[in-house]
């Protein structure tokens, strides 16, 4: 009898060991609630729309999650999100080749990531401070260069359709990229050496180093991943609106961190999930969309997200205590 009881318990634990467990339950609950509140919510077109809206935030959240798991922070993603399309727009408007412009704008994102990483690791100041400084710096540069005015795309560029153009109905290419990048980075985190090293670096830096893991390189690489994905997300948004504002999405970095945390990633590193970031970002987008369809004033959305974030963090912490100590 005891053997049976024990086996049962192990099965239950295996279930809880799925790092995205809390997030999956959360998104299902919201799906059911909003389906009741509005009959337009659970339509295929609206769901595709929801995923598309989630994509821009979600692509950033993927990178932010990777970095958070390795034990660092990036508050500059919101600024990079605006810098990359700004560089792209200015270059293209000056008749540079669009692929070269794309390459250069993403290279700048990579450069910002490298600087974030090097400054943090070589000086030993917290990445919270480094990237906060970077965020302010680049926001300032954006305002100074543009004089505070948005920049519009002056000519039509076919390439942009594959970044943020429509595929079918409410579905845009950005959503496809989002899913694709989720799969790629899920693989990197869960199925490669590099992923193992990322977990180890954030979980116990001293132990990782003692076991010969090149933790500094891992961290710098994750700073770069976080930055380049933020830049890419900015470009997909630009592809949709064809206009970029220097103050574009100013609190995006916090929403990206919120998505990661809702998805089960630990703020202090060593634990987390890319699939969770996908679910977290989609949950935020779903709540925004669902509240509008349910007829709630748009202002309620942030208040709602705030509560969800805290509840999600508490639930995730409880589950983690059970399975991971």
């Amino acid at each position, binding site marked *: 009898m005891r053997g049976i009881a024990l086996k049962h318990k*192990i099965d239950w634990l*295996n279930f809880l*060991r799925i790092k995205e467990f809390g997030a999956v339950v959360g998104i299902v609950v919201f799906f059911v609630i909003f389906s009741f509140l509005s009959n337009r919510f659970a339509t295929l077109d609206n769901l595709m729309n929801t995923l598309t809206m989630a994509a821009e935030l979600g692509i950033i959240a993927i990178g932010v999650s990777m970095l958070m798991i390795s034990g660092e922070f990036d508050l500059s993603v919101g600024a990079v999100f605006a810098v990359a399309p700004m560089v792209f727009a200015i270059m293209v408007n000056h008749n540079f080749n669009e692929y070269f412009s794309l390459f250069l704008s993403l290279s700048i994102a990579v450069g910002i990531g490298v600087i974030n990483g090097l400054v943090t690791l070589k000086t030993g100041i917290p990445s919270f401070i480094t990237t906060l400084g970077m965020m302010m710096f680049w926001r300032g540069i954006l305002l100074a260069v543009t004089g505070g005015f948005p920049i519009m795309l002056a000519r039509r560029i076919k390439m942009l359709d594959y970044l943020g153009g429509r595929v079918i109905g409410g579905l845009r290419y950005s959503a496809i990229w989002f899913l694709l990048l989720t799969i790629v980075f899920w*693989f990197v985190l869960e*199925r*490669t*050496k590099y*992923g*193992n*090293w990322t*977990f*180890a670096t954030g*979980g*116990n830096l*001293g*132990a*990782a*180093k*003692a*076991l*010969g*893991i090149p933790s500094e390189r891992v961290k710098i690489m994750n700073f770069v991943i976080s930055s380049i994905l933020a830049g890419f997300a900015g470009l997909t948004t630009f592809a949709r609106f064809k206009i970029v504002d220097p103050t574009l999405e100013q609190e995006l970095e916090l929403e990206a961190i919120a998505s990661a945390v809702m998805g089960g990633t*630990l703020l202090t590193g*060593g*634990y987390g999930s890319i699939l969770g970031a996908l679910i977290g970002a989609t949950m935020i987008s779903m709540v925004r969309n669902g509240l509008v369809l349910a007829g709630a004033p748009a202002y309620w959305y942030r208040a709602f997200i705030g509560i969800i974030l805290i509840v999600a963090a508490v639930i995730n912490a409880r589950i983690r205590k059970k*399975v*991971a*100590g």
Partner: protein
Amino acid sequence: MSDLLVQMKGIKKSFGRVQALRGVDFDVKASEIVGLLGDNGAGKSTLIKILVGYHKADEGEIYFEGSKVNFSSPREARQLGIETVYQDLALINLMPLWRNFFLGREMTKKIGPFSCIERRKMRRIVLDALADIGISVRSPDETVAFMSGGERQAVAIARAIYFGAKLLILDEPTAALSVGETRKVLEHIKEAKKRGISVIFITHNIYHVYEVADRLVLLEHGEKIGDYLRKDVTPQYIMDVIAAAAGVK
């Protein structure tokens, strides 16, 4: 080739104005358990960290298996078969057992251009390797946070054995362990020796190391103050030597 696995000659090391080691000779024979004893700050950890490439010696030479070595990182030492188990730095709490066991030495296979870790194989091997030295665990997916201090030491020792370590360095392996668990860890250490692995056992508890060691080396204030075969001394004698050295100063 001599039967010395490790030979350290005239090791000196200063940190700023503090002389941590003042010319220490230290060696370990094949399949030998050496207890490295000394008070806090005697230089035990510094000596070991120089051996594995964590620090560089200011002066002195190190030989491993007869040839001169100069490790620039613990990773290099690990590749040659020197495995170190630090007190708090052996395992990563939030990671599953199997990921811990293979950390830095993941088994991979190629899928097209991608190199993918072999999860199923590694999980099976972990259970086998632990069973091999008499430890049973519930699941390879369990995080090590739930393991007791003794189990964690056992996992680290099993890992060293599995990866064919020639020298196993244990830093205070029995600190903060219960009596029963200490006994088990000492058994694992003897098991490692039986398989031809040399062990350096760093501790300041003479009674723990006395049970298993072949030889006892005493450090104090950065100098070697004693080197005895266990059969020639009693624990009380060792204690007196250490206390006297500390007292003289």
